[in-house]
């Protein structure tokens, strides 16, 4: 998608009809819109949101969208029109979306909207014919999914929230939506909800009692599994919210001087305890893998000794390996030459002797088996000797980690008690309330983790029961024709679902890993902390890591600037990956081309980050639209972005306020009311 032009009429500060044409050339892809506070930068960002999706994020909501000057200058009973029109290109077609609302004031009262807003979407199709969409809202959503719009139209000063997202659902949705993976997910859902359901019913109706009974039981299991899945999802969501709240409380406690030191110590201990827990988990996995591979050796002593003795006996007796190979004799007979070089032509007796040798030789297969079994038996005997010590080693390391976790937990309990005591002794209500709430969240978290564990076990059992029923049906199926076909169709539908689900998971994983790399590349170009990196975890959480001794830990307490850099890297990565996929035209996931529209992207950054972010922004997407104030633009930012600027506008802000300190040409005091004009060029 490339945005060609935005036209506004009577929208917020923008009185009358005004328009902006955006830059979209390859090397000059940035449009800069300059404006001081209150001039309408945020209104412009919201013009896109309202135009496409009828959404705004003003504090006043949707009530105050109509221009103040239009209202004042209107005659009694005038009906006022307000619209946003966006012209854009998508997949080679040119579109025009116009959302219009009408307002009227009756009996001198405030202007109110007459009915709702109306969206009209027209385009020129592949045959060059002008067409109007019958269903513009859903058509727009199809071209540019509404749930993803916050990744492309955003306020730079609030963007850091993305980096602090605890819930992975938003990131997962973004990845899925932009890469076109939902088509596979949807196909899986349709197969499950329609095909599997239908063929199961046909099979049930045409089945004998046993089979019908088995299918009935399976349906019940599926119903129970759906309930368990819904509970699991809800618990996981609550768990995420609880963890986020604890994080927020920790952050606030750090800012309270009386407990700051204790709180910092608590965060350090949590990091150490989490590291021990992680090590313990990895150790358990290592132990399970080791026991799976070599645990049987603990019980195989007699068998191994017996095999070893048998093979040694064969070797001692000279039976194995054979003294002469059958292939060697065959080669001599083929060449009609004795081993000493003498010709065997006509030497019947010698040939007979060679054939006798061959008959007594051992076949290659037995020779190879003997060599392999000898090697394997010896290797198992050697390895068996170390099994016991390895397992003891695992147990000792696990004990040590358990002790560490226990020690850290005790210390954390003491710190919690000390923080509460400080709150009580100094009568600092905030500390007590925060600590109490933290304890509540921690208890709720522990409860949720237990519940999730139990539900996961239930779910596993239900899946096993379902598989058992499927196996049972294999044995009781009747061989009637209709039943057989219905069964084959049901099996095919289930197999299709299995493959689609597997494909979806694998492609999501592939996209996630690729995105993780791209996001980190952008992050590395901007972040100034050595060794820091960002990645997307298996649970789709955007995680920043930093070096900590000989390992890495998560950065839990990012500064606003660091969080903003993380978020920008994520959005840039998302857009870049969508573009890469779009160019490749892959079979299963397609990506797309998306612009980025940012209000005040440099707002909360210090000068060094401003400069680095400014250099990175033009490369984030094919088309960039940024709204900036003079103070944000002047200096390094302007210098870094200037060469990419293909279009530049200034919002000339007319205000009734008399500002003595106004030093910019773009703020024009002395007007009767507030309104903004869009002027081409930069009026500093």
């Amino acid at each position, binding site marked *: 998608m490339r945005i060609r032009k935005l036209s506004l009429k009577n929208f917020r500060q923008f009185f009358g009809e005004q328009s902006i044409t955006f830059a979209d050339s390859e090397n000059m892809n940035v449009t800069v819109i300059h404006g001081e506070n209150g001039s309408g930068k945020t209104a412009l960002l919201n013009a896109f949101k309202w135009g496409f999706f009828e959404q705004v994020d003003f504090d006043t909501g949707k009530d105050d969208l109509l221009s103040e000057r239009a209202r004042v200058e209107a005659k009694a009973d005038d009906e006022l029109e307000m619209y946003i029109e966006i012209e854009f290109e998508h997949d080679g077609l040119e579109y025009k979306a116009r959302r219009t609302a009408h307002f009227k004031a009756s009996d001198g009262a405030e202007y109110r909207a007459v009915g709702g807003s109306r969206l009209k979407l027209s385009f020129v199709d592949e045959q060059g014919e002008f067409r109007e969409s019958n*269903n513009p809202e*859903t*058509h727009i*959503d*199809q071209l540019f999914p509404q749930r993803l719009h916050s990744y492309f139209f955003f306020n730079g000063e609030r963007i850091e929230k993305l980096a602090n997202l605890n819930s992975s659902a938003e990131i997962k949705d973004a990845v899925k939506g932009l890469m076109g993976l939902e*088509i*596979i997910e*949807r*196909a899986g859902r*349709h*197969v499950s*909800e*329609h*095909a599997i359901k*239908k*063929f199961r019913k046909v099979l049930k109706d045409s089945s004998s009692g046993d089979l019908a009974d088995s299918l009935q039981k399976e349906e019940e299991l599926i119903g129970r599994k759906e309930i368990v899945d819904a509970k699991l999802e809800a618990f996981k969501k609550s768990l995420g919210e609880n963890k986020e709240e604890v994080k927020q409380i920790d952050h606030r406690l750090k800012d309270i001087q009386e407990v700051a030191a204790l709180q910092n110590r608590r965060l350090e201990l949590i990091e150490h305890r989490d590291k021990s827990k992680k090590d313990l988990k990895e150790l358990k996995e290592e132990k399970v893998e080791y026991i799976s591979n070599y645990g049987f050796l603990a019980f195989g002593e007699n068998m191994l000794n017996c095999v070893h003795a048998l093979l040694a006996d064969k070797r001692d007796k000279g039976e194995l390996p054979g003294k002469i190979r059958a292939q060697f004799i065959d080669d001599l007979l083929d060449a009609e030459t004795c081993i000493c070089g003498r010709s065997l032509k006509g030497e019947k007796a010698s040939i007979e002797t060679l054939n006798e040798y061959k008959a007594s030789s051992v076949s290659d297969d037995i020779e190879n088996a003997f060599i392999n079994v000898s090697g394997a038996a010896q290797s198992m005997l050697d390895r068996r000797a170390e099994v016991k010590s390895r397992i003891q080693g695992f147990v000792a390391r696990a004990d040590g980690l358990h002790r560490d976790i226990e020690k850290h937990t005790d210390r954390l309990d003491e710190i919690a008690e000390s923080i509460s005591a400080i709150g009580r002794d100094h009568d600092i209500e905030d500390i007590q309330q925060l600590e109490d709430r933290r304890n509540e969240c921690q208890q709720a978290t522990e409860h949720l983790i237990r519940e999730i564990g139990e539900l996961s076990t239930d779910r596993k059992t239900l899946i096993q029961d379902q598989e058992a029923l499927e196996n049972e049906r294999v044995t009781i199926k009747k061989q009637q*024709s*209709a039943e057989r*076909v219905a069964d*084959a*169709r049901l099996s*095919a*539908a289930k*197999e*299709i679902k*299995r*493959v*689609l689900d*597997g*494909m979806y*998971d*694998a*492609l999501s*994983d*592939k996209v996630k890993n690729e995105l993780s790399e791209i996001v980190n590349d952008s992050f590395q170009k901007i972040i100034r902390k050595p060794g820091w990196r960002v990645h997307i975890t298996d649970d789709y959480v955007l995680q920043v890591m930093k070096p900590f001794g000989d390992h890495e830990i998560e950065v839990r307490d990012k500064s606003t600037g660091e969080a903003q850099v993380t978020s920008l890297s994520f959005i840039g990565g998302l857009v870049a990956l969508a573009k890469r996929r779009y160019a490749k035209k892959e079979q*299963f996931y397609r990506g797309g081309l998306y612009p980025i529209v940012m209000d005040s992207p440099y707002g909360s950054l210090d000068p060094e980050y401003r400069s680095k972010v400014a250099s990175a922004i033009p490369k984030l997407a094919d088309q960039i639209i940024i709204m900036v104030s003079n103070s944000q633009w002047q200096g390094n930012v302007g210098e870094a972005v200037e060469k990419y600027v293909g279009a530049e506008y200034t919002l000339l802000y007319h205000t009734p306020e008399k500002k003595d300190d106004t030093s910019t040409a773009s703020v024009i005091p002395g007007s009767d009311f507030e309104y903004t004009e869009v002027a081409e060029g930069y009026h500093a």
Partner: protein
Amino acid sequence: MSKPSEILESTTETVRDLIAGILEVEREYENKKNIHLDKSLERQIGERICKLIEKEISE
């Protein structure tokens, strides 16, 4: 986790053909409307998927 290509290879050619057909149906509808809001359209897609499977696996 298996690669997408490995998952596709793990099944039969019939299932692979059916999946290609199903995705074609999904794409056809995707270009027309935002389907998750329209139950009758969802049913229509479901029926077309069933027909594809019935045609491929018949007596």
